[in-house]
Structure formats: structure tokens, C-alpha cells
């Protein structure tokens, strides 16, 4: 009886332990602050102005443009990420490590640098004109913006899909194969459904990012909803109607979250068989090798080659005075905030995800949704909310590292959910249940059995947060301690004043700097996988 009770209740105790509740509460409160702030600001509104600024036809048009952009970015991103993830996990293509590295790296390219790179393709200083003497039509509008955004957001999809492929149990596919099903049928009916949660979760993250982006779309001259918010804050120095517009964005986020839940409900992905999962036998590409390499070459050329070429070109325009000391200090400062922020995010993200999976209920789902709302809150509004609450309740924290860190963590914690959630789903509860049956406490069982296997997704998640923090601008601008500047701030201020030569070394440092981390992590991942006997 006791054994049976332990079995059914393993990992599903009715009241979640404090170890999960406290971090979840921190995340909930931290991400609720901006919502409170926006609601409070929104209350100042004047009804007649509301009609002119918020509820007008143009905003609907902008919203529609935003949705079109999201569709384009997700489609293009998936077209880059899905084949790439499949190739590096399931085939006999060589240099898988290097390819994974190259596919992850574009995440480090700042959005506006990517936009400049695409624009630079066709322009006066463009490669087409300088090298081939032809002038290409400029890449603008929906497709320009969509391409720019997908070229640096697809790595997020890639990393999640790759993790999903790696964690999949090959037994199902092999059974299907033995039943004589074709590869295409297997992919559609067995692989794709298993990829689905990772795919939808990444779409959500990338989609919300696209909705909030302003840098790339402004350069690509495509007008979307974030334009309206930007104009209110920056053009009108207004916080009331900007709050209304931001709340509309959050409403859209809630809709997207419900949609995501609806399409991924009631699926299970853990192995149910006995024994341990084997590694899949790689599929021989044969004569398709050439096509695979051409695909990678094209993606790498566009996503990394173009930005690096444009940066190289800016460098050639002249880096006026070497600012190496400043560059070094800035790089160190960037690392010292992004590093701890990434680690702290993980410390909070793991309990929240465990809570949502093991203790599902209104509390868990509220916290999870709030984290996504925090992620989707326009960064400027998020920063202003922190300013508001810090100055009123903890002025000693204002413009301190602690507050900056808190803001980063709250705004990016949702980014880390995907990898951890997927890993937990794939690990399942069986081994933990076995440990519990052997008389270990739930916490100890989790720590000993599950946590070690979460190392890989945790490292992957913190990498994502790390790179996002390195590139972050509005929160850093408003909340950073006095005199502190990041690499991204230096790039942006210089490009904004047309001083491209001055900006290039800083932008290159961001990419170089992030590449070191991506490289380290993939290397670590590789050795961890080998150690695990895979």
C-alpha cells in the first residue's frame, strides 16, 4: 500500500514544497510589477485622447502588420532551423559540433546590425555595387524586416529543436521503420509530433520577441505596433497612452499563451519502456551531402557572413582612435552583469518549471503566464516600472547592480523555460518515482536523479539569457549604475550618430565574446554527452 501510494504520488505531492513556491513567488511578483505600473499609468488617461491615440484605425493596421511580420519570421526561422537541427542530430554529416556552433552564433548579432548588413548588401557601399558593379533593389518592408529578424532569431529555434531531437527516444521510429513505413511518414507521424512542444514553445518566444522589436524594423522601414509605443514614449514623452498600448500588447501575449497551451495539451513525451534509450543510428545522406552543405553555407553566409562583412567594412572606413582600454573595460563590465544575470535566471527558472509540471494548478500556471508577460512587456515600460517602484520603496537600490540584475532576470526568465521544460518532459517521472520508492524524500530524489540530467538544458538556457542581456538596451540605459556602459550601448550610440567606424569594434566584440560562450557550452555539452555514454 505504502509503496503504491508513493508510486502514484511521486513527484505530485498535493502541496508544493517551499523550495519551489518561494522562487515562483519572486518571479510572480517581479513580473507583476510592470503590469501594476502600466495599469496605474493607464488610469490617468483622458477619454477623448484615448480615442485619438489608442483606439484608432491606424493601430489596428499596425497590429495587423505586426502579425504578418511574426508569420514571416516564424516561417523563415523554421525553414532555417528545422533542417539544420535535423541534419546535425540525425544524419552522418561531419563536423556536427562546428555546424551547431555556427547555427547558434547568429543569436549574438544585434538586430539593427543585422538590418544594416542586409541593407548594406544593396547600398552605395554595398557589396554588390563595390564588387560586382551591379545595384540590387533595396530590401525593405515586410520581407526585409522578416528576413533580418529571422536571421538572428532562428538560432533560438535551432537550439530548442536540436535539444528535442537529441532527447527523443529512437525506439518508436525504429518500430515504425521495421513496419516498413517510409522516412517521410515516420517524420510526419512520429518525429514531428514529438518536436511539436519544443517548436511551439520556441515560436512563442520568438514571436513575442518580434512583436516587441523596434531596432531592426525601423531600419527596414516597416511600420508595426511597436512603432506606436515608441512614438508615445519617445516622441511625446508620454507614459499614459504608451501604457495603454503596452497593455494591448500584453493582452495579445495572453492570447498567444492560451493558443500555445491549446495546441500542446495532453501530450506525453517521456519513454515508457524499460531499459535506457539508445542513440539513433545516423541516416546516411549519400548524394544529398552536397545539398546539405550548400544549405549550411547559405544560412551561415547570410546570418554571420553578411554582418561580419558589414562590420569589416565599417572598420575599413576608419576606427579613428583605438579605444582598446575602453573596449576592454566595457567588455568586462558587460560580462560581469550578463554572467550573474544568466545564472540567477536559471536559479529561478528551474523551480518555476518544476512547479508547473509537477504541481499543475492555477498558481503554477499563473506564475508561468506572468513570466511570459514579463518577457513580452516593452523593455522601456519594464524599466520605467522598476524606476517607479525602486524610487518609492527602495531608493537605495535605485540604479544599482542589484536592481539592474533583478530587472534582467524578471524580463528574461521565460526564455529559460523552454529548454528546461522539454528536458523534464523527456526525463519523465519514472526514475524519480523509483528513487522515492526506495525511501528517499521528494527533494532529494529530484536533486539526485533529475537535476544532474538538467545540467545541459540549464546551460543552454543560461546561454540564451546571457546573449539577450549582452544585447539588451532600454533596461540597461535606464537602470545601469552611473558611469557603467555595455558593449551594446556603445554600438547603438555610435551607429545612431552615423559613426559606423567607431561602432564596429564594439559590435565585433559582442559577436566574438558571445561566440566564446557558445563554443564553450557546446564543448561542455559534447563532453557531458560522452561522459553519459552517449
Amino acid at each position, binding site marked *: 500500500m505504502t509503496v503504491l501510494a508513493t508510486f502514484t504520488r511521486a513527484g505530485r505531492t498535493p502541496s508544493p514544497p517551499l523550495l519551489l513556491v518561494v522562487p515562483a513567488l519572486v518571479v510572480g511578483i517581479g513580473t507583476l510589477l510592470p503590469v501594476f505600473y502600466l495599469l496605474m499609468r493607464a488610469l490617468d488617461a483622458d477619454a477623448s485622447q484615448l480615442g*485619438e*491615440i489608442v483606439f*484608432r484605425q*491606424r493601430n489596428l493596421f499596425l497590429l495587423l502588420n505586426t502579425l504578418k511580420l511574426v508569420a514571416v519570421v516564424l516561417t523563415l526561422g523554421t525553414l532555417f532551423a528545422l533542417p539544420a537541427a535535423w541534419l546535425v542530430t540525425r544524419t552522418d554529416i561531419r563536423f556536427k559540433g562546428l555546424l551547431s556552433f555556427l547555427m547558434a552564433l547568429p543569436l549574438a548579432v544585434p538586430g539593427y546590425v543585422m538590418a544594416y548588413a542586409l541593407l548594406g548588401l*544593396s*547600398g*552605395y*557601399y*554595398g557589396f554588390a555595387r563595390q564588387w560586382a558593379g551591379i*545595384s540590387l533593389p*533595396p530590401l*525593405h518592408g515586410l520581407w526585409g524586416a522578416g528576413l533580418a529578424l529571422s536571421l538572428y532569431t532562428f538560432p533560438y529555434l535551432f537550439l530548442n529543436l536540436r535539444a528535442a531531437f537529441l532527447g527523443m527516444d529512437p525506439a518508436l521510429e525504429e518500430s515504425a521503420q521495421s513496419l516498413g513505413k517510409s522516412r517521410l511518414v515516420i517524420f510526419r507521424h512520429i518525429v514531428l509530433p514529438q518536436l511539436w512542444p519544443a517548436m511551439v514553445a520556441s515560436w512563442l518566444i520568438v514571436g513575442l520577441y518580434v512583436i516587441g522589436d523596434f531596432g531592426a524594423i*525601423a*531600419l527596414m*522601414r516597416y511600420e508595426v505596433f511597436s*512603432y*506606436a509605443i*515608441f*512614438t508615445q*514614449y*519617445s*516622441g*511625446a*514623452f508620454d*507614459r499614459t497612452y504608451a501604457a495603454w498600448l503596452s497593455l494591448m500588447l500584453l493582452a495579445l501575449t495572453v492570447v498567444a499563451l492560451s493558443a500555445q497551451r491549446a495546441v500542446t495539451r495532453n501530450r506525453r513525451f517521456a519513454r515508457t519502456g524499460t531499459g535506457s534509450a539508445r542513440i539513433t543510428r545516423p541516416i546516411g545522406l549519400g548524394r544529398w551531402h552536397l545539398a546539405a552543405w550548400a544549405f549550411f553555407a547559405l544560412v551561415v553566409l547570410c546570418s554571420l557572413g553578411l554582418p561580419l562583412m558589414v562590420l569589416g567594412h565599417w572598420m575599413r*572606413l*576608419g576606427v579613428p582612435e583605438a579605444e582598446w582600454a575602453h573596449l576592454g573595460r566595457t567588455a568586462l563590465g558587460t560580462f560581469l552583469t550578463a554572467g*550573474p544575470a544568466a545564472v*540567477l535566471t536559471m*536559479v529561478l527558472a528551474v523551480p518555476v518549471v518544476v512547479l508547473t509540471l509537477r504541481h499543475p494548478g492555477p498558481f503554477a500556471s499563473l506564475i508561468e503566464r506572468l513570466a511570459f508577460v514579463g518577457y513580452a512587456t516593452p523593455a*522601456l515600460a519594464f524599466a*520605467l516600472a522598476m*524606476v*517607479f517602484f525602486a*524610487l518609492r520603496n527602495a531608493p537605495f*537600490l*535605485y*540604479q*544599482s*547592480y*542589484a536592481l539592474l*540584475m533583478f530587472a534582467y532576470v524578471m524580463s528574461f526568465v521565460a526564455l529559460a523555460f523552454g529548454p528546461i521544460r522539454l528536458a523534464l518532459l523527456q526525463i519523465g517521472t519514472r526514475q524519480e518515482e523509483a528513487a522515492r520508492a526506495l525511501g528517499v524524500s521528494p527533494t532529494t530524489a529530484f536533486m539526485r536523479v533529475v537535476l544532474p540530467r538538467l545540467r545541459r538544458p540549464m546551460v543552454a538556457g543560461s546561454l540564451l539569457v546571457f546573449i539577450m542581456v549582452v544585447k539588451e538596451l*532600454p533596461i540597461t*540605459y*535606464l537602470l*545601469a*549604475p*552611473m*558611469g557603467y*556602459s555595455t558593449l551594446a*550601448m*556603445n554600438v547603438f*550610440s*555610435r551607429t*545612431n*550618430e*552615423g*559613426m559606423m*567606424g*567607431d561602432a564596429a569594434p564594439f559590435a565585433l566584440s559582442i559577436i566574438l565574446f558571445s561566440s566564446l560562450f557558445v563554443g564553450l557550452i557546446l564543448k561542455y555539452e559534447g563532453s557531458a554527452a560522452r561522459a553519459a555514454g552517449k
Partner: protein
Amino acid sequence: MKKTLLAGLGLVLGLTSFAAAETVTIYSGRGETLIAPLIKQFEAETGVTAEVRYGGTSELATLLLEEGAKSPADVFWAQDAGALGALSSAFADLPAEVNETVLDAFRNDANKWVATSGRTRVLVYSTERVKDDDLPKNIADLTNEKYKGRVAWAPTNGGFQAFVTAFRLTKGDETVKAWLKAMIANEAKVYRNNGTQIDAIANGEVDFGLINNYYLGRYTARDAEFPVGQTTFAAGDIGNLVLVAGAGIVEASDNKENARKFIDFLLSPAAQQFITLQGYEYPVRTGIIPHATLEPLEAVNEISPKVDTNTLGDLEATLNLLREVGLL
């Protein structure tokens, strides 16, 4: 793990600098590349340590409004009169003598802020595709069929909005609305800011742009062949409007003495000379050697429309108008 992290956080927290006696905190909407050497010079001259928060003028203005009476800032240095106007209520009164050091045309009568440099609105054009007699005489010309789809503008940009405000105040809202609509009908193309308009002309996307005067110099200084030129409209046209960048002392400042020292420094001949030579802008006082490539200030004053810079902070009606025609 968590404990050590929290302890680490506490440590970092403890290390955040608390203001020493001789400091001044500056929120600067002007970019670090141009300003950093000036700040160093200020520190060397006065012995006051300057703590500078760089950022976009509008972000910092919004931040100052949010901070209100609790702002740690002593000085706000802004790129445009719109931001200065929006912050009038957050600025302390300047002693009248501060504005008396600057040229008449640049004075702020309310003594809320002081201009630190002048700049003009200009027309940039493609030297490859535009012949001299194709240049428009005034901004109204830009609505002619001849310029269809060839003109760039930046409706979200502070300089452009100040221009629209001045246009409204001199010619009335209806005239401006008609002009904006005619420009839209003539397929004027929207760009993000001044620099992107210059790029677009070089790239062959458009042939003309409406921007501030000091951007093109940064391109031509590095590339003499750069295919973009700069010119003015006919004398008195609103397209030749003179604008200012300026600074004010934040009302919430508990260090107004040092704030004043910084403002005085910005108006000093040395700082004015630096801004003129390095920033391609106009000095706000006499006795400064003009920039060789800039149209002399006397000539600019002659052709620029007579608009009181003090009135350019009246943004609200301008934004409403831009919204009404669908530009924002």
C-alpha cells in the same frame, strides 16, 4: 548556491558608489563619442567628478519625468528643444545671467534651460542624380510632381517634429496639414532618423532628405567622394529653421552649485569651440572660430525664418497633427 549568489549580490550592492562631495550627475542625450572629451576637460578644470548617464534624449526625458522629485540627476543635456520644453516643469529656474551669455537668437526667455549649440534644418540631396536647377526653392516645392517618391523624411525624429512645430506656429495648422498630406500624396518615404536618410540617398533609394546640418560632415570627412550634398532653401523658408540643443538644471538636484558649474563650462569659449569644430554645430556665443565647412552663422541667420526657439517645446499639437495625417 543560492545563498552565495545572494551574498554576492549584497556585496555588489554595497559597492555601488554613493555620491562623493564634489560630483555632478549629468543625464546626457548627447552621444558619448562627441561628449566624453569635453567631460574630461570639465573635470580637469573644476576638480568636480562628472557622473554621466548617456542615452537617447527622449528616453532620458521620460526617465526624468518618471523619477520626478527623486531624480538623482543634476543636469539634463538634451539634443532638442522639444525635450527641453517637455521638461520645463522639472527644471529649476536658471539665473538670468546664464542666458545673457548666449546670442539673442538662442536665448530661452523663461530661463528654464540654456542653449548649448545651434544647428539648422537643411536639405540633403544626391549629387549624382540631382542637377542644381532641380533643387527645390522651398519646402512647398517638394510636393510637386517632379519630386514624387524622391523625398525622405523622419516623422518620429525630434528635429523634424520641431520643424513641424515652427511651421505650425508661423503658418497655422491648416497649412501644415495640407503640406503634410501633399507630401504623403507625393510618396515621401519615411526613415528612422537623419543618418538613415543620408544612407538612403547614397544608396539610391531617394534623392532628397530633410535633416539637421551636422550629420553629413561625418560622412564626407571620411569619404570625399560621398555622393550626397547639402544645401539650404530660399531665404526665409521654414525649411531653414534654426534649432538648438541645450541643458537645464534639474529641480530635484541637491547639488545645484556644481550643476551650474557644468552649465557655465558648456558655455565657456573652450567648450563652445570644441562643439563647433568636433560637432559641426554653431556656437551660441560670439568670439568662436567658425567651422570651415559650415555656412557662417550670419548667413544662416539671414536666411532662416524668424521663429522664437522658446515656442518649439509645444509638441502636443504637433504630434496630434502628425497622428491625424497618419504619420505617427
